[in-house]
């Protein structure tokens, strides 16, 4: 059962452009995490959002948790080649594990 759908699946943009990645579900999550994964490595946590409507900023990255805690978005301003990677959202249902989204593969072209 796939609880989290991410869109778009692939995204290729020029350096300096802005972009938004979406993470949607029909399930409610107690919290949601965003990870970035580079080729040949494991995912690394970027942020955790807990409260419905919460917005967190990490330099040029802005994360928002939906009011109903079913969806989230990641907005990157002025993308740079170093932002290239696979972005994964992961929802906590309250059990002892996370459900990961399908991922968005971002390529930023210099």
């Amino acid at each position, binding site marked *: *059962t*796939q609880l*989290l759908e*991410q869109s778009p699946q692939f995204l290729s943009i020029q350096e300096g452009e802005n972009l938004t990645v979406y993470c949607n579900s029909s399930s409610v999550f*107690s*919290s949601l*995490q965003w990870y970035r994964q580079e080729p*040949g*490595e*494991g*995912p*690394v*946590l970027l942020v*955790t959002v807990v409260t419905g409507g919460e917005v967190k900023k990490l330099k040029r990255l802005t994360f928002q948790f939906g009011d109903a805690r079913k969806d989230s978005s990641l907005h990157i301003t002025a993308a740079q080649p170093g932002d290239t990677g696979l972005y*994964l959202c*992961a929802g*906590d*249902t*309250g*059990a*002892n*594990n*996370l*459900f*990961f*989204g*399908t*991922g968005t593969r971002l390529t930023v072209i210099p």
Partner: protein
Amino acid sequence: DAGITQSPRHKVTETGTPVTLRCHQTENHRYMYWYRQDPGHGLRLIHYSYGVKDTDKGEVSDGYSVSRSKTEDFLLTLESATSSQTSVYFCAIGEAGSTDTQYFGPGTRLTVL
């Protein structure tokens, strides 16, 4: 970086053979997880452990077993490997279950011919 190692990093095996993957941590974290990552599916949880000898099934546990006899080691066993188990396997650790940050190992690429 969290101290997590996985071994082997790459393995090619034949259908029907047993395979064991090892995850070792030096962080003394309580929780340990095994995931598989496949194109179009993201990361899917296989099994997890919340303490020594305490394990539970995840989303895709069929065909896999795990053991945790020490805090630092979490073993994933494929009793009889199948081609559908060709994947990249990641181990992760965490202190406080799913609400906490999970730190991932570098992954093991397994190919079953």
